[in-house]
C-alpha cells in the first residue's frame, strides 16, 4: 500500500543508480519536480524511459543522469530540438547515450504488455522501415497462428520505477489523474514500483464515475508537491508555461549556459517550491 513520503525520501528510497526509470506524462502531468530531485541527489547510470522525452529529460540527460534512453519522440513540442539530447547523441556530451528507439505505437504496445503481465504485445503487419532492423530483441516479425497474417511482436517493458505527477491523492493512497493521461496508467501498472507526486492530498478524491484512478495497492509512494509538473501543467490547477518551453531553446543550446542554469535553478534549489519561487512564477 502507498506510503506518504517527502519527495526527497521517495526518490532516495526507490530510485537507485542503474535502474530503469520511466517519468511518464504526455505534455500534461510531466513530473518535473521528481526529475529535478533525481538530479539533485546525483543519481546516475539510469536507463530513462518515456514516449516523449522533452525538457525534463533534456535536463536530466544534460546533467549526466542517464546512460540509456528508451523513447519514441524526443523534441521540444512546437519549438524544435532538445539540444542536450542532441549533444549526447551527436557528440557524446556529457556521456554516451544508448538509444532504444521506437515509434509511439510500439511504445504503447510495450507498456500495455508490461502492464498486462505479458512478455510481449502485438501490432498488425510487418514494417518496411529502417527502425525495425535496429530493434533486435525488442521487436520481431511473427505470423498469426490462425490466419498467417503478418504481425509484429513488441517486447514488454517493465520499468523498475515509474514516476508520475497527478492532481490528487486521498489519504488511503488512491490517486486521481484527470485530463490527458497519455501512457501513464500503463506505465504505472507495468512498473515494479510507482512514485506519484500530487498537487494535493485530500480527504475525498471527488472522482467522477469512470475516472482514471490508480488504486492504492498499485502506488508505492506518494509525495505532495504543489506545482510539481511546472513548466508542464496540471489540468484544473495551472496551465502549461509555453513561454518557458520557448525560452528553453536558448538556454539549452550552449553547454555552459545550460550547466549554469541548472546549477542555479535546480541543483542549488532547496526544494521544488524554492525553484518555482526563484523562477518568479508563483502568483
Amino acid at each position: 500500500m502507498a506510503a506518504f513520503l517527502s519527495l526527497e525520501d521517495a526518490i532516495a528510497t526507490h530510485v537507485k543508480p542503474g535502474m530503469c526509470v520511466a517519468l511518464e506524462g504526455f505534455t500534461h502531468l510531466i513530473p518535473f519536480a521528481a526529475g529535478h530531485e533525481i538530479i539533485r541527489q546525483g543519481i546516475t547510470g539510469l536507463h530513462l524511459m518515456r514516449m516523449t522525452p522533452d525538457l525534463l529529460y533534456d535536463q536530466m540527460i544534460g546533467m549526466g543522469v542517464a546512460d540509456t534512453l528508451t523513447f519514441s519522440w524526443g523534441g521540444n513540442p512546437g519549438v524544435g530540438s532538445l539540444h542536450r539530447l542532441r549533444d549526447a547523441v551527436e557528440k557524446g556530451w556529457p556521456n554516451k547515450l544508448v538509444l532504444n528507439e521506437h515509434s509511439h505505437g510500439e511504445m504503447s504496445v510495450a507498456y500495455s504488455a508490461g502492464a498486462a503481465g505479458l512478455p510481449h504485445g502485438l501490432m498488425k503487419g510487418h514494417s518496411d522501415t529502417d527502425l525495425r532492423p535496429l530493434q533486435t530483441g525488442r521487436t520481431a516479425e511473427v505470423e498469426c497462428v490462425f490466419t498467417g497474417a503478418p504481425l509484429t511482436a513488441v517486447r514488454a517493458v517493465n520499468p523498475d520505477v515509474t514516476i508520475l505527477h497527478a492532481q490528487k491523492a486521498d489519504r488511503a493512497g488512491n490517486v486521481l489523474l484527470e485530463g490527458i493521461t497519455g501512457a501513464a496508467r500503463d506505465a504505472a501498472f507495468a512498473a515494479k514500483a510507482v512514485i506519484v507526486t500530487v498537487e494535493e492530498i485530500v480527504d475525498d478524491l471527488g472522482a467522477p464515475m469512470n475516472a482514471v484512478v490508480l488504486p492504492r495497492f498499485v502506488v508505492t509512494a506518494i509525495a505532495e508537491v504543489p506545482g510539481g509538473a511546472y513548466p508542464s501543467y496540471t489540468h484544473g490547477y495551472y496551465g502549461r508555461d509555453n513561454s518557458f518551453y520557448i525560452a528553453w531553446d536558448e538556454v539549452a543550446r550552449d553547454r555552459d549556459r545550460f550547466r549554469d542554469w541548472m546549477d542555479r535553478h535546480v541543483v542549488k534549489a532547496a526544494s521544488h517550491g524554492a525553484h518555482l519561487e526563484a523562477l518568479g512564477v508563483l502568483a
Partner: protein
Amino acid sequence: MTGKTYTSGEMMTVAAARLLPDGAVCFVGIGKPSAACVLASMIHAPNLVLIYESGTVGTRPSVLPLSIGDGELADTADAVVPLTEIFSHYLQGGRIDVGFLGAAQIDRFGNLNSTVIGPYDAPSTRLPGAGGAPEIITHARDIFVIMNQTKRGFVDKLDFRTSAGLLNGGGERRRKNYPGRGPSVVVTDFGLLRPDAETDELTLVSLFDGAKAEDAVAATGWPLRVAGKLDVIAPPTTEELEALRDLNARTEAAHRTPVKLHLKKTA
C-alpha cells in the same frame, strides 16, 4: 512571393484545408495540420473530427495547440482516452480517414525521414524521431503530407526511412496489403504533388497562383515529374484568410499569456 497579400505558409494551410471532406476523421499533428483542420471546420467542414495522439477525440480548439497535449484539446474534446487506446482502437482499429504528416526528408515515393541526417550511429543531426508517424502512415485510410519543398528536404535517397510511404513504388504498398493507401498528396509551398497512378512517383499536379513549375523542379532533389496539364489553385479567399489570421492571432495571444501558479502551499 512578391506582390502577394498572403504568405506561402498561409496558402499551404488553406490548400490543405480545402482537401478535407466534411465529416472526415482526422489524425492531426501540431503546426500546419492543426491549422488546416481547424480552418476547414470553420469554413466548409463543420463536422470534421479532430483526433490528437495525446488522447483527445473530437476536439474543437479555439486556439491552436503549441504541443499535442495542450489543455485546450482536452477541454473541448468529446472524449479524452489513454494514448494506448488511440493507437489500438482508433488508429490500428481502422477508424481514421485522414492522417497528416510532415518530415525532415521525403523521397519520390512519399517515404519519410524524421529520425536522423547522416548515419544512425553518428548522425550529423539527430531529429526528434518517429512519434506516431509509422503507424499513422500505415493505418489511416489517406495521408496528407505538408512540407516546404527544398533540395534538402525532397531528396533522391532518404538518410533513414522512418515511415513507409509508397515504398519503392509501382504498387508495392498495395501488393503488401497495407491497411491504408499511404500519401495521396503532398502540399508544398509551390502546390500539390500526387503519386502517379501507375508508378506511384510523386508528380507536380497543381500550382499555387503565381508559382512556377520550374522553381518546384529546381527545389527538388530528384528529377521531379510535372503533369501535362497543371491545375492552378485559387488564392485564399478573404473568408479563409481572415479566419486563418484570426486563429493565428488568438493562438499567439494565448501562448504569450504568462502562467502564474496559484498554489495552496509549496512543499
